[in-house]
């Protein structure tokens, strides 16, 4: 994003790592039967977060949870964003989600519209037992009745501000910054 003016670093790499560990523990704590859990990350950064959660679960429980990736572009409620041209990325859900406890994972929870789209898409794949939501950042300003079950950090923001999550896998480093559009 070229039109982004950084204001402050909110989370460092170390903090992000700790938060993901905590959130993974919370998932396991919340759901007694690990075998029923499936992880679904929202493209792009949610997918990488989900992958990290999967690795931690493997480390703790020795179980490899099913992992899926959702691209919600085709389920959006607006075909064109104001100033972006979303590229359609692939959805990969190669396991049966019927009866699963789906933990939906995204980087930032904002208006809730992305989650609405993701829920619609998940329902087109089957009937999970339950869907839980995990986000790294909740920045408020919901436009739909959606709330997260697992929140890394609540960050009060103004609507002018933007929260940018950087992850090693895509951005070369782990960091969460708050800034403004210019």
């Amino acid at each position, binding site marked *: 994003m070229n039109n982004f003016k950084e204001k402050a670093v909110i989370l460092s790499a170390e903090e992000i790592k700790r938060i993901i560990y905590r959130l993974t523990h919370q998932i396991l704590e919340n759901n007694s039967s690990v075998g029923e859990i499936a992880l679904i990350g*929202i493209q792009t950064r949610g997918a990488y977060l989900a992958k990290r959660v999967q690795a931690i679960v493997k480390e703790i429980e020795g179980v490899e949870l099913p992992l899926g990736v959702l691209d919600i572009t085709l389920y959006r409620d607006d*075909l*064109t964003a104001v100033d972006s041209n979303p*590229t359609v990325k*692939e*959805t990969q859900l190669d396991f049966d989600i019927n009866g699963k406890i789906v933990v939906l994972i995204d980087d930032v929870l904002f208006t809730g519209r992305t989650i609405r789209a993701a829920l619609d898409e998940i329902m087109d*794949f089957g009937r999970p037992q339950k869907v839980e939501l995990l986000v790294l950042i909740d920045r408020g300003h919901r436009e739909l009745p959606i709330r997260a079950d697992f929140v890394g950090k609540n960050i009060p923001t103004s609507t002018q501000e*933007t929260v940018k999550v950087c992850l090693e896998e895509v951005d070369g480093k782990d960091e969460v910054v708050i800034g403004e*559009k210019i």
Partner: protein
Amino acid sequence: MRKSNATIAWRRKDLLDIESLSREEIELILATAESFKEVSRREIKKVPALRGKTLVNLFYEPSTRTRVSFEVAAKRLSLDVINIASETSSVKKGETLIDTGKNIEALKVDIIVVRHNYSGAAAMLARSLRVSVVNAGDGWHEHPTQALLDIFTLKEKLGAIKGLKVSIIGDIAHSRVARSNIWGLLKLGASVKVCAPKILIPAAIEEMGVTVTESLDEAIADADAVNVLRMQFERDSQDAFPKQLEYFKNFGITEERLAKLSKKIVIMHPGPINRGIEMSSAVADGPHSVILEQVTNGIAVRMAVLFLVAQANEYINPTKHFSNPKGENKV
């Protein structure tokens, strides 16, 4: 299959040809198609992306496979589809193409997919209308979605287009499939050879950047893939045309010819095949043939095209009265 890296935005309301597309635009369509391919593997093979929009298949030439392919692609994107064939339209009553287009536009449709026997018809329609126009074949000019699905299939089979040697065999002169394939393959860095009897080679084709041969063995000798065109013997032609048997003898692909090759070759055909004319049945059904995969890939490619043009037209001619300016984080 290597994942395409598309970095640019699609900003055309229409898809009229391959010639005017940049390499990046072609790659964007292919990358988008890769994502759409997954939708057809779902149990519910439908996404709401273009829900509430309407597509008209306006076909002035009989066509089943292209029309059905567009229809399936459209329905998987939740488009409503209306089919108009020239036999049942006001075309027979003398209405001009532009008038027909404007009448369809007045029905508030969003996309017109047009197949026409005159070259340039899609361009003419696109120029006169605000709705998106997708060329499903105009005269001898271009058939862009066919080339895109051919290239998509090649990429799926062989990994990358750059550096590939592709031969196009058959009636080059009258083939829109040939023209679109030539442009697309050249733009993506393949080398292209065309092979046909002299009377079916159009003027100055080498200036497009292809080589020409009249020998089928030469055309397939070191090719990675061949695209075999349909010979339209039923076409009411004023030009000289080879006889069917003579054509098969000189230009038909047979197992015997393939057996002489040192490597495996991918064989494509836009269909419908004339078995025993363009290729033997054994070849059409054999291990080299990717003909049915082409058909499957056609859906994903056409979904990608419909999605991209609809999205671009929304951008160029916004219909919404509200927007979501706050959605910049994840929209």
